[in-house]
């Protein structure tokens, strides 16, 4: 809730130093007032309280008093040591005082009126001895089971909390969860400033810790139930509902690690900081695509976090080697980190919490979650967790590749865990059976903010990586595998036949042209011969005419001479 967090707190607050909790409460617990932390057995009340105290002493220069009504000091020291705190040293340094108040019913008898002045005194004494600003009372309700006079106890508790306020001590009071109310003895009646509820719920044999700020007088606070973690890193609470869609967007693209796939995307890759969903049936190479993506990111010098839920990191590295990727070198150089866990190890919320923490610790630029379909649970819950997971990644500007397994005969509405609308890009992998063989194809269902190919492409995985194959697109549709090869050779044959036919026709034509020309030459020759003949006859006629003329002349001269 970044927007709210910047709001000026109206109330002085004492930070707990618990990651996330101070965000939810916009600064911490109400300073100088008591806070009730209640929950059932094993919900982490004592851990919460001691973290509050230790952080106060170590981070905020506020020494504290731990008044334990249940655990002995030694047990307490041992218990918080599991969170990495050295309580003994803090006690020795005079930063924390521990007082174990043992009220053993078996050796106590009541007779007449009394008050709890002894308790006040001891608390006051301990507070003064370390100059405490913080106090933990864990679990003060124990007094109710040790002492019978409830009227006295109640009035004394009221006095105690009044005294704490008067002294300006920030106080955490723990209480066991009761029937129909927050605590068995109704402590919430006295502590009205802030009530925090811890819960440890088991659903289908998986436990999830949750925290809720029930009330916080005089301050805004996150009202949801937030999952929280207790492990060797301490307590972390996850304010993971902050889905204010305000994250930065980038128009820079990053390669998917598969050149052929990049080519199908108009921008030449995925946008940085976008979320990509990769769905496919078994054996379509989802993890191999993920490995390519990771390898490309590491090659760019980006930090990558690979969450695996079905395989071990060693297995992924080995398998990636078979397509020519060396992921081991990225692990060695510190750019790539695997986080492997069985989905059933924790509840969904815990997984989310763990991822949240890992993201904060490793600060990756690219994340792979393989696969999200490993998360089982009620659909609503899975969806809400995934939604927050995606938000988490987007808010940090992390490019995320999420894979999801589709069953061969899936129902189309369940294919994406309701994720499709959250995703910026969605690539679907197929394994299609045709003519007795399986062929792998993919297509880009969507990719926000860029044009992308609408074609189904075939791809093969080989020692040199994932390669896209030029698709056969023809009147018979898109063909893959052998069918594509057969179709190609069939076309080749047809082409050859067509060429031969054309050549034959060409030859025919040439031959016919030759014959025609020959005939034409013959006719022309005959014509010429006739022409010559006619010319000859013509000249003979002329000669004959001339001879006749000459004869006639001769005759005439002869006749004249004779006269």
């Amino acid at each position, binding site marked *: 809730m970044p927007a709210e967090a910047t709001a000026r707190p109206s109330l002085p607050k004492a930070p707990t130093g618990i990651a996330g909790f101070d965000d939810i409460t916009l600064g911490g617990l109400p300073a100088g007032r008591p806070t009730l932390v209640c929950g059932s057995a094993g919900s982490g009340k004592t851990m919460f309280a001691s973290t509050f105290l230790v952080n106060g002493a170590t981070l905020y220069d506020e020494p504290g008093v731990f008044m334990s009504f249940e655990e*002995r*000091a030694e047990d307490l020291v041992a218990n918080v040591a599991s969170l990495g705190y050295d309580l003994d040293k803090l006690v020795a340094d005079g930063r924390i005082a*521990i*007082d*174990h*108040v*043992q*009220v053993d019913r078996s*050796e*106590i*008898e*009541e*007779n*007449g*009126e*009394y*008050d*709890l*002045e*002894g*308790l006040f*005194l*001891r608390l*006051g*004494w301990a507070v003064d001895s370390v100059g405490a600003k913080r106090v933990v009372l864990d679990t003060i309700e124990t*007094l109710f089971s040790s*002492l019978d*006079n409830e009227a006295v106890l109640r009035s004394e508790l009221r006095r105690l909390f009044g005294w704490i306020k008067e002294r300006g001590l920030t106080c955490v009071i723990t209480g066991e969860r009761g029937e129909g109310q927050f605590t068995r003895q109704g402590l919430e009646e006295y502590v009205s400033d802030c009530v925090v509820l811890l819960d440890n719920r088991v659903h289908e044999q998986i436990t999830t810790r949750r925290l809720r700020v029930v009330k916080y007088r005089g301050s805004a606070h996150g009202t949801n139930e937030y999952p929280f973690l207790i492990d060797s890193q301490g307590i972390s609470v996850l304010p993971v509902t902050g889905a204010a869609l305000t994250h930065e967007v980038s128009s820079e693209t990053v390669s998917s690690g598969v050149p052929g796939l990049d080519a199908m995307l108009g921008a030449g890759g995925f946008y940085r900081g976008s979320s990509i969903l990769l769905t496919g049936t078994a054996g379509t190479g989802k993890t191999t695509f993920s490995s390519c993506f990771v390898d490309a990111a590491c090659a760019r010098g980006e930090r990558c976090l690979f969450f695996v839920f079905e395989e071990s990191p060693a297995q992924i590295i080995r398998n990636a080697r078979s397509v020519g990727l060396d992921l081991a070198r990225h692990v060695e150089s510190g750019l790539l980190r695997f986080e492997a866990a069985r989905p059933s190890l924790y509840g969904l919320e815990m997984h989310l919490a763990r991822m949240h923490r890992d993201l904060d610790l490793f600060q990756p630029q690219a994340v792979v979650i393989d696969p999200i379909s490993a998360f089982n649970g009620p659909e609503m819950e899975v969806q809400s967790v995934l939604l927050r997971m995606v938000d988490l990644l987007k808010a940090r500007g992390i490019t995320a590749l999420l894979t999801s397994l589709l069953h061969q005969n899936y129902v189309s509405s369940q294919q994406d865990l309701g994720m499709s609308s959250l995703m910026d890009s969605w690539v679907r992998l197929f394994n299609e059976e045709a003519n007795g063989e399986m062929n792998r194809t993919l297509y880009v269902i969507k990719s926000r903010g860029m044009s992308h190919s609408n074609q189904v492409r075939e791809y093969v995985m080989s020692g040199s990586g994932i390669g896209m194959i030029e698709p056969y697109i023809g009147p018979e549709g898109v063909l893959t595998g052998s069918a594509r090869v057969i179709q190609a050779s069939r076309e080749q044959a047809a082409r050859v036949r067509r060429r031969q036919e054309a050549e034959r026709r060409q030859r025919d034509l040439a031959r016919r042209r030759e014959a025609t020309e020959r005939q034409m030459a013959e006719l022309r020759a005959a014509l010429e011969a006739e022409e010559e003949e006619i010319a000859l006859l013509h000249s003979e006629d002329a000669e004959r005419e001339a001879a006749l003329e000459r004869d006639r002349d001769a005759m005439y001269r002869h006749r004249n001479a004779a006269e």
Partner: protein
Amino acid sequence: MKNEAGPVPAPSPPPGIAAGYRLRLFVAGSSARSLRTVQELRQLCQQALGAAVDLEVVDIYQQPELAERDGVVAAPTLLRISPAPVRRLVGDLSDEQRVLRMITLAIGEDEDVG
């Protein structure tokens, strides 16, 4: 921890019951109730147990460390240090019979109390 030491018993409890009661009474300041409790207890011990009672009165305001050492929560608190086991009685001791019974109660007799 200081309070782990528990109530300090007398070095060697006297064998006879009449001989060795060691009691410690914690009161808070010199309020009317404190004074009345101290006075009544003194009177009671005198009458019922005679001189065999060693009663120590502690004002927790004056000696808070003693209150912490003996794990005192409520005031007034009466501690029977010896004979063992240590027993404690919380309240202003208004029921004299129960006070007496608690002081004189030995091990294994505590079923009827309370």
